[in-house]
């Protein structure tokens, strides 16, 4: 045991020594700090009491998209002097229980996603009955009003898919591959169906194991090898775009890679031309608006949308806009 401790201390000391000696003169945190260059952060700007808003989403663990939504919501909460609570679960039943918990806590407003509307129905009804204003975001626009929410903030997935189909037509594509990384996700099916609706060529769906990037890469690669007529690949999430690019290189395919949603890497790839276009639904805006609308409702009984969903997308982003968005994506807000 003592000998083992000696080894550990030697190893740790060696690692620290090596890390001091082995610096990288490019990239990394130092470059990021240099980029940040004093962008001052403002504090709360209102004099309303400290309300509490709970946001409950159907996000899985470690999802980039929901991280951006949360950043937007947090920013609005800081500005509106609101205490912001965030929780999430990708199982409908658990998500409903989280809403119940927020109602039990007696929060002043609830932001919720309705990806599984049937599971959420009674929990949302309970919140409305308790007099808590509810705003739905991202998914469930068709159920939002029925459940008694004030407003829905999000993107209509079918409309977004249709926008992609039209963009593919403009680019003269013939065969598109729609890559679904979550089997059984209704929103994903709607996106691919939307593409199919407006796209003049053929659309083929492929399901991949979203939690395993290597498997995603080899599945898309296999599909591209099996079907050489594919000239456009549409991924439904930003992290999968880069993987699709790798798969395309492996397969020696000429297909153009396009994607739903943005992240830093997608913005950079749009800029250097490895990706064709991205269709963005502005997740930051979804989080920000939802919290801000709750504040407006409590402060001034304002509602937005006149009973219709407030759309945050689709916004087609190409090479031209990518340069401007890259720095925003880097800081986790686009």
């Amino acid at each position: 045991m003592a000998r083992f401790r000696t080894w550990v201390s030697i190893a740790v000391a060696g690692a620290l020594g090596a890390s001091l000696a082995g610096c990288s003169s490019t990239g990394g945190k130092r470059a990021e700090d240099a980029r940040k260059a004093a962008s001052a952060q403002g504090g709360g700007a209102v004099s309303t009491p400290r309300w509490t808003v709970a946001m409950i989403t159907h996000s899985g663990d470690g999802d980039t998209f929901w991280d951006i939504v949360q950043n937007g919501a947090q920013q609005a909460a800081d500005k509106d002097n609101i205490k912001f609570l965030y929780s999430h679960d990708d199982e409908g039943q658990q998500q409903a229980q989280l809403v119940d918990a927020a109602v039990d806590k007696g929060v002043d407003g609830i932001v919720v996603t309705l990806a599984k509307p049937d599971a959420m129905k009674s929990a949302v009804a309970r919140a409305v009955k308790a007099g808590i204003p509810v705003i739905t975001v991202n998914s469930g626009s068709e159920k939002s009003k029925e459940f008694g929410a004030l407003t829905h903030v999000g993107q209509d997935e079918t409309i977004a898919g249709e926008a992609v189909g039209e963009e593919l037509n403009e680019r003269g594509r013939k065969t598109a591959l729609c890559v679904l990384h979550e089997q059984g996700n209704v929103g994903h099916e709607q996106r691919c169906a939307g593409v199919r609706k407006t796209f003049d060529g053929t659309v083929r769906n492929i399901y991949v194991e979203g939690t395993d990037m290597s498997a995603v890469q080899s599945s898309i690669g296999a599909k591209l090898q099996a079907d050489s007529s594919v000239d456009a690949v549409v991924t439904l999430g930003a992290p999968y775009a880069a993987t699709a690019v790798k798969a395309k290189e492996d397969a020696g395919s000429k297909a153009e890679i396009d994607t739903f949603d943005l992240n830093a890497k997608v913005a950079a790839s749009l800029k250097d031309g490895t990706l064709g276009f991205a269709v963005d639904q502005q997740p930051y805006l979804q989080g920000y608006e939802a919290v801000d609308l709750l504040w407006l409702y409590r402060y001034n009984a304002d509602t937005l949308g006149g009973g219709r969903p407030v759309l945050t997308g689709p916004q087609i982003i190409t090479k031209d806009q990518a340069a401007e968005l890259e720095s925003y994506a880097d800081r986790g807000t686009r």
Partner: protein
Amino acid sequence: MTATIPTPPVSPTPPTGSTADDRLLRTSPLRRLLGRPELGSVVGALAVFLFFALIADGFVRAAGLATVLYAASTIGIMAVPVALLMIGGEFDLSAGVMVTSSALISSMFSYQMTANVWVGVGVSLLVTLAIGFFNGFMLTRTELPSFIITLGTFLMLTGMNLGFTKLISGTVSTKTIADMEGFASAKVLFASVLTVGGVDFKVTILWWIGLVALASWILLRTRVGNWIFAVGGGKEAARAVGVPVAATKIGLYMGVSFAAWIAGQHLLFSFDAVQSGEGVGKELTYIIAAVIGGCLITGGYGSAIGSAVGALIFGMTDKGIVFAEWNPDWFKFFLGAMLLLATLLNAWVRKRAEATA
């Protein structure tokens, strides 16, 4: 065509527990071959290969096979030490997320310290080995079942992957390190592409073959290999004849974490940013590959080559379905059915072999 199926080397000493009479008999090479744990899986692999070769267009083309081999290698690299661990009578449920942890550690250490990427890779190796040591140490000290110990590690690592990444990077995926010094050379080692005769093969295939060879040599040619079979066959009996049980089990867990480090670095250098929520559920894939390859859930029986064949079956099925262009709605169903059939065939061949042996 059959070159993709590794043929099992004939070992002079069958590792199965045999009676005194058997040891004095001079067995024929064919007999010995029939007694190998991976024989059933080789037959299963051939069946799966033929099946997809017949119905899936593009499956038997060189580029298609390279894709299948890559898919198999990402599973196989982890299936080798997991098979050894199962022969030693233990489970590791933390193997899947450990791969992600390892990738996150290198990436974030390099980025935050603005250090050469190789420094992060080294630190990641040390930390990942420490996780493996923790698993083995807890197991041997507490005497709790490995299922419980590694389930705890699995949950803790899953949480730490998310928590630390968010704490350090401010987002749920790491920032890219592709523009840092040392990235290019590390990429050559962990995620390069070798072009042989116009076909691109991923370097992970070489890592996989290397690990299988090393593990086979340890199992069949060294004293440590005998210890692994002994602790899996019967811990108390092994201890009674002087086998260092605790050290063997800790070593096996560290073997898993070493392979997790290799797989994690591949993940990092092929995608240069890592999503922190990945890897959950992969541990079952590795265990399935080992079981298809002839490892018994109860321990004491199995082989490294078998785990490779199991990973190959997994890779062929997974990608064969894509090549066959079947309706994707049924994808999971076919995958489950193919795996079940392969394992049944495997068990049936083993039974026949034992009956004639």
